[in-house]
């Protein structure tokens, strides 16, 4: 590849090869985006973690390229969002073409006043490299390259793994095992656990090309374009003038043949024209599935990311949902490991994230039904929608070239405290219990965005000084502490004071003077009230940690 050289991370002979080692609190299998996010989150919380990866580099080829706003917000909390955003290509607009006409245009982030764009496109290798470098900054995180898990033995109070290295095999005992080893998950197979769902009968060619071009930074999707009749195609920009191109090939295509440059080049020439100057960086042919494990938690073994659930790439719901998995998991694991919450708090990881996976699978399956119609009538309806879309607004809503990743709203989570005050907004985008906290521009002691002040631990977000110094101090001293962030009003001792510069925080949180929101460590709302009451807040934290 011209634009990227895969780093080679040094293998180090693990000490367990020479003498039995101590038991580890957490072992993570897989140093992909999800495993690394888990490891950084654990490291930030001061929990020692060993990450085992069978390889010694990052992703070969660009693979997952679209990182959604929510994933970027999580990365901000993990201290590596800015690098991804700086290197990546931000975009909000998508266009859909039918044959040679533009039929539909969407803007994923129509309103200003958010710290992060709807999406940033970045090759997975860059993304992983930044996460590796962030992980290396934590003494608690030990990355072990060329360490391949070859055996797993779950016990009631831990997990024993066998690991193969270039110098031989060793045993590693751990309290918890987080499995992030991808869609083919060897660990899942070793444990004899299945995934259930659908495989789709279609093949796609995916290619990265290096090209200087004045195509706009937008997601362009074609149905039945003149350059690739009867199939779909996608063009999307990545960093360093690398472009992602995706061609639907149909089920009968020969994957080996289609991977060859002499087959790819004419397709690219037809799409980009004779004058385009480009070079192929990477290409692959893939099929896809929409499946998940029945349960993501099996005692002390917890699955996250593609190992637990897979979807089609249309909608960017793979890596983005995997990062939300670890965001959901790690704070719970910390509380359980520290004896501050019962084991069943981890069952809520399973409940919340299997539901999120179902939502992703539903959306992804519907997109594939549109992109890959399974009957001739399904194809006819698809063409009917596309031909109506140019002139009729209603039909544009039916065009489905991928419903792009949005954060899971954990509306029916048992960790939520249902609204007591009936006058809170409940419509789309409202900060109902379960919703991820909305961002807003603020002025405060560190940074200009609301989300940088919440999360990590529990946060009480109050509007106009609802919590007095006694309340602030009491919550800070609790066994599961909660810090207070105050939007507007007179300063309160111990609370962080933010100014709502554009009034957007008040608007987005449907806030009155006195309104308080309780946010979980993963920035999801879990309770809200029109006035502060210390015992109500404590009861909601008890509920959100299964301490009831």
């Amino acid at each position, binding site marked *: 590849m011209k634009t990227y050289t895969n780093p080679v991370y040094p293998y180090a002979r693990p000490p367990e090869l020479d003498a039995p080692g101590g038991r580890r609190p957490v072992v993570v299998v897989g140093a992909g985006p999800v495993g690394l996010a888990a490891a950084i989150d654990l490291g930030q919380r001061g929990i020692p973690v060993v990450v085992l990866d069978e390889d010694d580099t990052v992703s070969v080829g660009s693979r997952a390229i679209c990182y959604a706003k929510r994933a970027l917000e999580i990365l901000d909390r993990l201290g590596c969002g800015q690098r991804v955003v700086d290197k990546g290509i931000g975009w909000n607009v998508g266009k859909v073409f039918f044959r040679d006409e533009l039929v539909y245009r969407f803007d994923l982030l129509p309103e200003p006043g958010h710290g992060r764009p709807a999406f940033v496109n970045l090759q997975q290798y860059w993304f992983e490299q930044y996460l590796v470098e962030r992980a290396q900054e934590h003494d608690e995180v030990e990355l072990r390259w060329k360490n391949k898990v070859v055996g797993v033995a779950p016990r009631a109070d831990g997990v024993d793994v066998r690991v193969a290295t270039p110098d031989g095999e060793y045993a590693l005992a751990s309290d918890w095992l987080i499995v992030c080893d991808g869609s083919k998950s060897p660990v899942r197979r070793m444990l004899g656990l299945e995934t259930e769902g659908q495989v789709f009968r279609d093949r796609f060619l995916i290619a990265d090309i290096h090209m200087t071009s004045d195509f706009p930074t937008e997601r362009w999707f074609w149905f039945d374009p003149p350059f690739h009749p009867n199939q779909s195609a996608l063009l999307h920009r990545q960093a360093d003038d690398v472009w992602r191109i995706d061609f639907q090939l149909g089920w009968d295509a020969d994957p080996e043949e289609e991977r060859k440059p002499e087959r790819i080049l004419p397709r690219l020439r037809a799409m980009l024209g004779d004058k385009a100057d480009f070079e192929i960086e990477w290409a692959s042919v893939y099929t896809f599935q929409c499946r998940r494990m029945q349960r993501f938690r099996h005692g002390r073994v917890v699955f996250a990311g593609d190992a637990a659930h897979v979807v089609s790439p249309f909608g960017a719901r793979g890596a983005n949902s995997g990062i939300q998995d670890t965001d959901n998991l790690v704070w719970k694991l910390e509380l359980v490991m520290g004896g501050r919450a019962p084991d069943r708090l981890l069952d809520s990881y399973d409940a919340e994230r299997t539901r999120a996976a179902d939502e992703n699978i539903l959306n992804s399956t519907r997109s594939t039904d549109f992109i890959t119609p399974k009957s001739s*009538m399904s194809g*006819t*309806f698809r*063409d*009917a*929608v596309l*031909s*109506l879309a140019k002139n*009729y607004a*209603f*039909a544009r809503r*039916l065009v489905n070239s991928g419903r792009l990743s949005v954060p899971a709203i954990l509306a029916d989570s048992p960790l939520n405290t249902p609204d007591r005050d009936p006058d809170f907004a409940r419509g789309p985008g409202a900060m109902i219990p379960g919703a991820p906290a909305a961002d807003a521009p603020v002025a405060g002691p560190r940074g200009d965005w609301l989300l940088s002040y919440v999360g990590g631990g529990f946060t009480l977000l109050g509007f106009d000084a609802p919590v007095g110094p006694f309340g602030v101090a009491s919550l800070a001293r609790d066994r599961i502490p909660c810090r207070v962030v105050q939007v507007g009003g007179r300063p309160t001792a111990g609370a962080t004071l933010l100014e709502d510069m554009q009034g957007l925080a008040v608007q987005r949180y449907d806030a009155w003077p006195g309104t308080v929101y309780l946010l979980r460590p993963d920035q999801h709302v879990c309770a809200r009230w029109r006035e502060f009451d210390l015992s109500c807040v404590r009861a909601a934290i008890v509920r959100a940690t299964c301490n009831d």
Partner: protein
Amino acid sequence: MATLKTEPNIPAPDDFYERLIATHHGLSDRESALVNAKLVLLLANHIGDPGVLAQALSAAREGVGSAPQGEGR
């Protein structure tokens, strides 16, 4: 919940039927299928009510082939 109207509601049924058939005049089966699909979508949007649409879909399917598989959502 609104109910699918199945009592006569078209003022001049023969006029409508003639127009429906004429709409397909000179088209291949494939083209006709596309016209029908567009018509279904236009009318479905006009109706809008999900309950009425669900009743119409199941009434249309009744007695044709075997029962549709799953996904009654």
